[in-house]
């Protein structure tokens, strides 16, 4: 990496040999105008506006700074008369083609052009080629190209038809110096639809994300579409980005497992009458949670879909819980988080908040007090299962609003409450894949899909299989404090197992009496844990007690009764039969 001496406008500096002049100038703060140059793209050197005067071994040359490689001892002047005359005329020529581009006019003012001598054209493209090159070299979509030659040259798509290779990544709009390329409204509208989604392909999910690191969204990252781009990898100084990473299946030997696979919120569309998915302003509690989060997409403001503030908000409890059609059980946490949201919505947007509940379950420390606090705050609580949410306006007051129809059991009448936004406090349910996970760990589960603990009171965090523990909502709906407590318990259990240092064998393993064994090997393929092996020398089956789980299948199958099981010998069971049948 040879360093060479370079002087620009009298300022002496050093730079790596053959680096482009414009980079050296930038480093020492000398401003050289560029139009067709962009750091992410190979220098192209066609606008020639970056022309500077270079004195080298007595020869004076005008070169373009963007791609001229510095060599040892060169002297550069960026503001000589010859340079200014060149830039002035280039700008006049450009104005003759694109007379009304703000960028060109500001530059022109710098060079004292008031009235260009070739008039002002009304084109906006200066044919700098940035869009063509970023689309081909960086994005790799090859949607744009140059057509024709000489003065009739223009940028376009093949046959001037919309190109199917364009992936609407907007890179060309980004680099176009004159704003000639714009994104058509349809794409803008699609981007607008996803306020809650990430804005770029690489993003840090939220401020509180753990681990607090950027992640690449496989679907929207250009590299996985066109195998090009990798701009993020280029600018990352820590060189931490590797697009080649693949999902890896790793085999990890562990002593014990804590299953904490959690829950999933009930899909509100399972309760169609509340209109989720039909009315834009019917949102789930999680979405409101996303909005009230200060680093969320709406910076903590509770907004309607069209971005305005709601005047009135209705929060419906027990959506998908305590309901024969979905789940009979109470999800335990919805009441309290609904109250929290009611408080935050009222505080953030000043809207009138209604809560529709069946029974206010504010059990536990400080919760009841919080409920009373809300009552004082003016939040209106209506006791009754909400029948329906619709947008038919019966009275003018309901025009343009969502109407919640509910039977107010305390008042004893059916009421229609118009609100701007409806929040559905969806309950908790077992995850879709709960069944596979259960089978994987040989656990059994309740009818609702929650994993079954060994004993509700005596062993709440362990399961029937030794060494496999469960914690959190995988075992049943619970709130965060309970989950954290259970997590601690499961960890303690696991550590206890590890701490003992050895594994307790099952008490009731099988064994083989070698005298009686005839070597028929019926038992060998029977054992799912391959605990039985046939020893060639002794011509008898041998059983490894450490592997044997004690199911006894081999014992039942052994014709010569050579195989027996501790605590469940044939004799014991036979006498049990007799005992049971004695008169």
């Amino acid at each position, binding site marked *: 990496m040879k360093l060479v001496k370079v002087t620009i406008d009298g300022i002496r500096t050093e730079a790596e040999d053959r680096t482009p002049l414009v980079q050296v100038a930038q480093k020492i703060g000398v401003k050289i105008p560029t139009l067709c140059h962009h750091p992410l793209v190979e220098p192209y050197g066609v606008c020639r506006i970056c022309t500077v005067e270079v004195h080298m071994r007595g020869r004076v040359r005008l070169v373009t700074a963007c791609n001229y490689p510095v060599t040892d001892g060169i002297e550069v002047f960026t503001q000589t008369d010859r340079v200014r005359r060149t830039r002035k005329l280039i700008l006049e020529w450009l104005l003759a083609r694109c007379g009304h581009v703000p960028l060109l006019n500001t530059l022109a003012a710098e060079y004292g052009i008031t009235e260009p001598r070739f008039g002002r054209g009304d084109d906006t493209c200066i044919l700098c080629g940035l869009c063509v090159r970023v689309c081909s070299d960086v994005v790799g979509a090859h949607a744009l190209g140059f057509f024709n030659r000489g003065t009739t040259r223009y940028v376009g798509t093949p046959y001037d038809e919309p190109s199917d290779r364009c992936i609407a990544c907007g890179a060309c709009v980004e680099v176009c110096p004159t704003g000639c390329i714009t994104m058509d409204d349809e794409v803008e509208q699609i981007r607008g639809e996803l306020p809650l989604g990430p804005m770029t392909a690489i993003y840090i999910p939220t401020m509180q994300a753990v681990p607090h690191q950027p992640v690449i969204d496989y679907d929207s990252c250009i590299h996985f579409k066109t195998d090009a781009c990798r701009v993020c990898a280029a600018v990352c100084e820590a060189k931490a980005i590797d697009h080649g990473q693949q999902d890896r299946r790793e085999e990890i030997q562990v002593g014990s497992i804590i299953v904490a696979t959690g829950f999933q919120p009930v899909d509100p569309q399972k309760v169609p009458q509340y209109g989720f998915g039909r009315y834009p302003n019917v949102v789930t509690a999680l979405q409101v949670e996303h909005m009230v989060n200060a680093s969320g997409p709406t910076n903590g403001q509770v907004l309607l879909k069209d971005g305005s503030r709601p005047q009135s908000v209705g929060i419906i409890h027990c959506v998908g819980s305590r309901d024969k059609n979905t789940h009979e059980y109470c999800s335990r946490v919805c009441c309290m988080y609904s109250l929290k949201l009611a408080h935050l919505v009222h505080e953030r947007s000043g809207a009138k908040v209604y809560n529709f509940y069946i029974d206010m379950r504010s059990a536990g420390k400080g919760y009841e007090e919080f409920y009373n606090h809300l009552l004082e705050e003016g939040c209106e609580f209506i006791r009754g299962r909400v029948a329906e949410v619709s947008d038919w306006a019966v009275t003018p007051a309901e025009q343009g609003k969502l109407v919640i129809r509910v039977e107010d059991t305390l008042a004893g009448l059916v009421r229609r409450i118009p609100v701007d936004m409806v929040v559905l406090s969806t309950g908790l349910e077992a995850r879709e894949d709960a069944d596979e996970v259960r089978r994987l760990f040989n656990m059994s589960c309740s009818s609702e899909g929650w994993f079954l603990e060994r004993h509700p009171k005596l062993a709440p965090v362990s399961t029937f299989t030794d060494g496999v523990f469960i914690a959190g909502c995988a075992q049943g709906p619970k709130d965060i404090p309970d989950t954290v407590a259970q997590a601690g318990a499961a960890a303690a259990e696991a550590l206890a197992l590890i701490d003992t240092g050895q594994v307790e064998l099952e008490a009731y393993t099988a064994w083989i009496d070698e005298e009686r064994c005839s070597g028929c090997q019926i038992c060998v393929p029977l054992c799912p844990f391959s605990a039985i092996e046939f020893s060639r020398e002794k011509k008898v089956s041998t059983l490894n007690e450490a592997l044997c789980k004690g199911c006894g*299948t081999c014992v039942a199958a052994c014709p010569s009764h050579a195989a027996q099981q501790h605590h469940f010998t044939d004799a014991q069971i036979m006498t049990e039969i007799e005992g049971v049948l004695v008169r």
Partner: protein
Amino acid sequence: MATTAFEPRIVAFFCNWCTYTASDLAGTARLAYEPTAPVIRVMCSGRVDPQFVLKALQEGADGVLIGGCHPGDCHYQEGNYKTLRRFRLLKRILSQFGVEDERVRLEWISASEGDRVQHVINEMTDQLRKLGPWHARS
């Protein structure tokens, strides 16, 4: 013999992880069912040797009920499949001995199906009452 009505006696072999727990659950859930089926707990339905069934019938049981986990749920992965294989062969022999089909049953009952234990035992007891005692008592 006492003139009281015929009460069938069933020997039930329940696997420890599923059916035995289910019957325990039925108990805690206060589900009432006929007391005619005392339970012998085995670690896995695979442990039930066909000879146990023959022994039970020989000793005067009117019916035998074997309870195991649903296929795929077995705590020992394949035990219940072996039971199913043996049970099919056993049923063929028993029919030759003249044992009616209802007398010996194999049921898959998982740990959470307490109600199913209640249902199976009650149903089997009714059937055996109709069938009458197993007269092969020696």
